[in-house]
């Protein structure tokens, strides 16, 4: 057993080293906000889906994402935040969702690309928390990842289908090209001090570069089967999948996992529940 694996668990956030607590809070908030907004984006696509079954599944996936968001926001209570305020009181500029989610999903191509490329990146990051020494997060992740297996199957099957339709292929590949760099970048930088401390403490079990390899090993074969991997710069190098497109880190904020930009105010209003705010209960 490694020294790290044998190390005691952190049962509560106040047991965390000071310089690990803030980056953990940053990571959990980025995950929660991304799940919240992804659920909204999925919900926008569930009407007008290609088939009734596809719409029902999209609706269920939206519910899953909102459930995951709620579960993840709840973790922030232990990290010094008021989860309810985070969910209902913030301006759009304060949301830390994955940047590709700032805009609507463009039709079924966008829905499928987001489910394949963005949702899977979130799952890769959650999976690195599965064996976390921070017990509250470790306890919540397995069920979430079990549900995400269905999201991936759904995305992979629709990617295969769209790739067979000549009039849709180009648009789908364009959506993938739009999302993939953002997803790879969102997984972060190994040299970011906060990220390094989380890995050193066994709170996150894999550094960003390892997450990217595992993420590409998941997404790469689907892109390859769709005949789009090479065009997207995703290649199998020996036994390992890599992406030839280098991430642009200019302006990158490691804590927010963003390089400027913002969620639009209308989407933030929906995320906050502004329409029925009068009915909100303590």
């Amino acid at each position: 057993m490694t020294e790290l694996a044998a190390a005691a668990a952190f049962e509560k956030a106040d047991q965390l080293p000071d310089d690990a607590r803030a980056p953990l809070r940053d990571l959990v908030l980025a995950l929660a906000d991304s799940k919240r907004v992804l659920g909204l984006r999925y919900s926008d696509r569930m009407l007008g889906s290609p088939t009734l079954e596809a719409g029902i599944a999209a609706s269920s996936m939206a519910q899953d994402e909102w459930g995951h968001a709620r579960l993840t926001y709840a973790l922030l209570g232990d990290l010094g935040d008021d989860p309810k305020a985070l969910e209902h009181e913030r301006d759009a500029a304060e949301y830390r969702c994955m940047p590709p989610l700032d805009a609507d999903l463009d039709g079924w191509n966008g829905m499928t690309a987001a489910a394949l490329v963005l949702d899977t990146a979130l799952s890769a990051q959650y999976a690195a928390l599965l064996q976390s020494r921070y017990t509250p997060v470790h306890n919540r992740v397995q069920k979430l990842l079990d549900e995400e297996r269905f999201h991936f199957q759904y995305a992979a099957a629709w990617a295969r289908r769209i790739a067979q339709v000549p009039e849709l292929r180009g648009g789908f590949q364009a959506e993938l090209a739009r999302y993939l760099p953002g997803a790879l970048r969102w997984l972060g930088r190994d040299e970011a001090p906060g990220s390094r401390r989380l890995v050193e403490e066994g709170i996150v079990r894999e550094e960003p570069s390892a997450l990217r390899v595992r993420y590409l090993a998941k997404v790469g074969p689907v892109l390859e089967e769709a005949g789009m991997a090479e065009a997207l710069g995703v290649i199998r190098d020996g036994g390992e999948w890599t992406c030839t497109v280098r991430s642009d880190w200019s302006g990158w904020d490691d804590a927010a996992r963003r390089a400027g930009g913002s969620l639009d105010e209308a989407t933030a209003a929906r995320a906050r529940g502004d329409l029925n705010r009068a009915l909100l209960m303590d």
Partner: protein
Amino acid sequence: MKEPVYEVFARKSREEPLRHIGWVNAMDGDLARVYAWKTYDEQNWSEMCVVPRSAILPIDPEESQFVTAARDDHEDEIVHSTGTGSYGGGDVAGKEGR
């Protein structure tokens, strides 16, 4: 291109026999599994399976609910796909699929 029909079977415990609970239209087995799980989720199933309707051979086709007139124009043709099993079948944590 017509979508095949998949029949959905489920049970709540190992002791129960699998029973027919419905059907879904899906392009392939992978999507049929997702659609079935997401559509028939009102009960706490311990096991759920999907079977291509075309794989069911009724003893008496005249009486069977698993035969449709559409079979004549290949609606029920099985779509073979490598499925997500070929991508490892497990979750992104690297576990093997169940």
